[in-house]
């Protein structure tokens, strides 16, 4: 990036190609183009999410574009070869520019340009001439004093042939140091960055020495070709360690796979803690870790937290994320479609699978997540219907909350997938504790078919003892076709109480009740609606539906009495019971779209957290910082030290003084200074 006052080389048409290339690479035009290209190239990586798992990209772009983009290196733009080439050109261009201009700069800095001729001074844009009758000695003394007083360094020339004396002065020469500092800084920063970049790794991959592991296999089975030795100069990777466990490797994610970096020490995680503010936002994430040096057996125990890493032998260990480390769960499993109303016990742990058989079918239950707290907003809307955002996101983001809030902690929850023999899975999100809606309490279970869908919740109503058992008993009776005649008889007796009725009519009522219960037990409200649509003329559908619903509700009440009498409990007929029965009916109907034969109710848990640590070794860091310091210094030198030159040609023979001044950056300050000198000189040159 040469300066303006560099004179064009003559005979430019006769230069050889190498010289032409040198001219181009060190030219200002080229540098500006590079800055622009670099800026535009950088945008790509901000628009397209970088380093996502490859399947995400395939889903987003489809196979064709996925491959095209992969070829262009768009999933990791900043480490792609073309991006690094641009950077290399920037370093080259800047270096050449420094090489080309430094000698000139240094010469300029030292020189007073005391050999300027009268003619050249007269060609300056900023010049003035004065007549004076003072003797030459007085003049040079006075003018010299003035210039020094104004902060110039000055040089007094010897009288020339005609007796002319030139005083050449300059100020702000360090301005040019600024140029050197800033441009050197850019090169230094880029080189420091490259040391910490992945170029050596890329080279090793190209040479086939290192191979990215793409399989999901246990760490110790990863082959040597996919491992990096502890001597590796620079790396950045992560590892997740459950409480009470340890690790001596980290994983470096590259493209669609990873490499294993062996560490010179073992890291043990004793405890991971999350603290919260009263509003539920996380306040701190802390890990108690112990390092044990493999070579010296030295051990270091420390608590690390966000913004407070531990640096051990050049390797920095950061608190990066957290997760579940295999929380142990005890559950009650409720069979939803069997006549039994007793739960079975089930154990599991997060990130582990458990087999489950039901009837002839076997299922795999994959426990994916456990959360100790769920802060839900109950204001205005029907809370609980939206899944909570992952607490993990608070690691990096703050949140701006909406106006209406009624934040409540609704307690623990856990998440699991139930996969059938065909591999089809549905995902469930169950709260451990009941949640209140409009004075009534429910246990909530959310279901979704795909990860990008919201959970749809089924609400299991609680009985008077605040248990789910009542609902399960009622459900067992209601879905058991064997008991439908009993329910129907009970209902008919109740409905026709005290009335003398035709036994045929009574039998008819019992029959239709059985039919309604059967239909409901085969598919809920939806099955009833289908039946009505099929068998009833359109005009009467509404009326029939009303009647059926009435019968269904009343007979469910009978079912409830039967269920309660089986365990010797009386039924109090009141609002509460009616509400419970109506809720139960709705829930039973919803079971048909629940998609799983069981509901897992969390009974107990033993939380085990895991801490996500990031480890880096970056020898280039201090180089980059050094370069940054140079950059800042240089920028201030360039902006705030103004280089000015002044010449005063004393011509005793003519009784005149010629004043000329120049700068390499013409600003208004310079104009003002020029005018100031002019007025000062008028005064100085008077008798």
């Amino acid at each position: 990036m040469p300066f303006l006052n560099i004179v064009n080389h003559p005979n430019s048409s006769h230069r050889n190609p190498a010289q032409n290339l040198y001219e181009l690479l060190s030219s200002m035009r080229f540098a500006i183009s590079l800055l622009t290209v670099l800026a535009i190239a950088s945008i790509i990586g901000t628009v397209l999410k970088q380093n996502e798992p490859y399947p995400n990209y395939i889903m987003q772009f489809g196979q064709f574009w996925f491959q095209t983009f992969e070829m262009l290196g768009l999933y990791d733009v900043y480490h792609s070869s073309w991006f690094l080439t641009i950077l290399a050109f920037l370093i080259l261009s800047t270096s050449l520019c420094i090489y080309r201009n430094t000698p000139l700069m240094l010469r300029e800095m030292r020189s007073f340009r005391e050999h300027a001729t009268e003619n050249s001074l007269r060609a300056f844009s900023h010049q003035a001439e004065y007549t004076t009758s003072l003797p030459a000695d007085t003049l040079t003394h006075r003018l010299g004093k003035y210039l020094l007083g104004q902060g110039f360094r000055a040089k007094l020339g010897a009288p020339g042939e005609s007796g002319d004396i030139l005083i050449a002065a300059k100020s702000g020469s360090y301005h040019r140091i600024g140029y050197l500092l800033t441009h050197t800084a850019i090169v230094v920063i880029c080189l420091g960055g490259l040391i910490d970049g992945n170029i050596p790794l890329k080279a090793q991959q190209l040479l086939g020495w290192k191979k990215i592991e793409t399989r999901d296999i246990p760490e110790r089975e990863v082959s040597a070709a996919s491992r990096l030795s502890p001597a590796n100069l620079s790396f950045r990777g992560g590892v997740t360690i459950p409480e009470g466990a340890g690790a001596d490797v980290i994983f470096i994610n590259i493209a669609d796979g990873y490499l294993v970096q062996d560490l010179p020490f073992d890291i043990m995680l004793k405890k991971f803690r999350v603290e919260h503010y009263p509003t539920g936002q996380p306040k701190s994430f802390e890990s108690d870790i112990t390092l044990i040096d493999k070579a010296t057996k030295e051990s270091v125990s420390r608590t690390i937290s966000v913004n407070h890493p531990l640096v051990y032998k050049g390797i920095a260990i950061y608190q990066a994320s957290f997760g579940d480390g295999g929380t142990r769960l005890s559950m009650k499993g409720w069979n939803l479609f069997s006549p039994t109303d007793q739960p079975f016990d089930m154990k599991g742990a997060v990130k582990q699978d458990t087999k489950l058989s039901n009837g002839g079918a076997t299922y795999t239950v994959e426990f994916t997540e456990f959360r100790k707290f769920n802060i839900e907003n109950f204001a205005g809307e029907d809370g609980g219907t939206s899944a909570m955002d992952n607490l993990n996101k608070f690691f990096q983001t703050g949140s701006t909350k909406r106006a209406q809030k009624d934040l409540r902690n609704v307690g623990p929850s856990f998440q699991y997938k139930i996969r059938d023999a065909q591999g089809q899975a549905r995902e469930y999100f169950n709260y451990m504790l009941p949640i209140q809606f409009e004075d009534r309490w429910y246990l909530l279970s959310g279901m979704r078919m795909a990860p990008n869908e919201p959970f749809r919740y089924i609400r299991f109503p609680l009985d008077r003892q605040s248990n789910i058992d009542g609902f399960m008993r009622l459900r067992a009776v209601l879905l058991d076709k064997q008991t439908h005649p009993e329910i129907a008889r009970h209902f008919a007796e109740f409905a026709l109480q005290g009335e003398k009725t035709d036994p045929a009519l009574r039998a008819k009522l019992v029959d239709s009740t059985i039919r309604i219960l059967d239909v409901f037990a085969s598919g809920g409200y939806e099955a009833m609606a289908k039946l009505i649509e099929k068998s009833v003329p359109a005009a009467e559908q509404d009326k029939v539906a009303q009647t059926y619903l009435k019968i269904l509700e009343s007979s469910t009440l009978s079912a409830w009495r039967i269920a309660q009498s089986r365990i010797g409990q009386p039924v109090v007929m009141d609002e509460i019971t009616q509400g419970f029965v109506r809720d139960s009916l709705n829930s039973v109907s919803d079971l048909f779209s629940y998609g799983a034969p069981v509901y897992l109710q969390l009974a107990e848990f033993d939380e085990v957290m895991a801490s996500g640590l990031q480890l880096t070794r970056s020898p280039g860091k201090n180089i980059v910082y050094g370069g940054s310091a140079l950059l800042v210094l240089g920028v201030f030198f360039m902006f705030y030290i103004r280089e000015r030159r002044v010449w005063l040609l004393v011509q005793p023979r003519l009784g005149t003084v010629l004043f000329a001044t120049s700068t390499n950056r013409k600003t208004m300050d310079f104009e003002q200074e020029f005018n100031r000198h002019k007025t000062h000189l008028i005064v100085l040159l008077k008798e």
Partner: protein
Amino acid sequence: MELTEKTLDYNARTSLLKSLSWFDWLYALVLAGGSIYAFQLYGNYMDAYEKGILFLAAAGMIWQGWFWKPFRVLLLAVAILSLFGISQYHGQLARAEQTFFLKFFFGSQTAIMWMSALFVLATASYWFALLTRSGFTARVSSAITWSAVVMGLVGLMTRWYESYLISPDVGHIPISNLYEVFILFSILTAMMYLYYELRYQNRQLGAFVLLVISAAVGFLLWYTFDRQAHEIQPLVPALQSYWMKIHVPANFIGYGAFALAAMVGVAYLLASKGILTTRLPAPELLDDLMYKSIAIGFALFTIATILGAMWAAEAWGGYWSWDPKETWALIVWLNYAAWLHLRLVKGLRGPLLAWWAVIGLFVTVFAFLGVNMFLSGLHSYGTL
């Protein structure tokens, strides 16, 4: 022969120290005393970096006041009003809504509303002055802008205090989210404008610069009333660091300076098209101001980006992660680096650079707001 001071011992320059008045010294004394007092009160709660920041900030503000005289009065006014405001709380947050002075003047929310209203008023007033060529109105506009800056700073100070009233662990400097930095942006941009207003003895540009501040105020009001963003939120773990105290202000001096340059660029372009030409300053002045403001912006933005990298190294484990915010900061930096090369090395002047400065503002706004709205990444502290 090179002339030396020995041969000619005569010095026409007056050194800074000799030019200081008694008020300058009093100002310095108050600041030094204030920082020592604060240190004695709260030193136990500060880490070494925070102690350093306290004393360096005091030293920096002494220098700033000596260099730019009106700053002394501004600082003292803000200090007196803030301390008065804080004295009215009696340690109870609820009093912000009850006490007369807090409810109507110095409670943080009220003071920020005053700032907003005054900035909008000043914009209208500057435009009136520009169109009617009224020197008196222009002086009034300056006074209003100064008042807005005072109220904004008082608002931030009391907000800082209020955050500690919520709970000592919630308390933090109010530059932690989009709402707070928008206030900071308005104040800093206005202060830089006021500095140049005095320096160039020219009040016509206020009409333009205050437009961008009013836009920021508009956003602030929407953000307050639609999103309730004014509520003080506790700091997420990543932001709990002394780095925030230096990284964020440095960044916003940069953003403010770029915004100022862009608005001067708009004035330049209008004047060059013959619109308002006779009312606006000479193109040379506009050009010079545009350069100076981009220069200071670039210098501070460079520092801010480096500080950001150092903070990132401590919080995220890498000084550069190509996070969208970092990358856009680099793009902004490259953009103005190119601008400065054209201007300084090529000696380019005129509408092209003015256009570039205006477009630069859009790039800057995207880096500062757009990234948070459209792109995800580590930096999403201020989502809309």
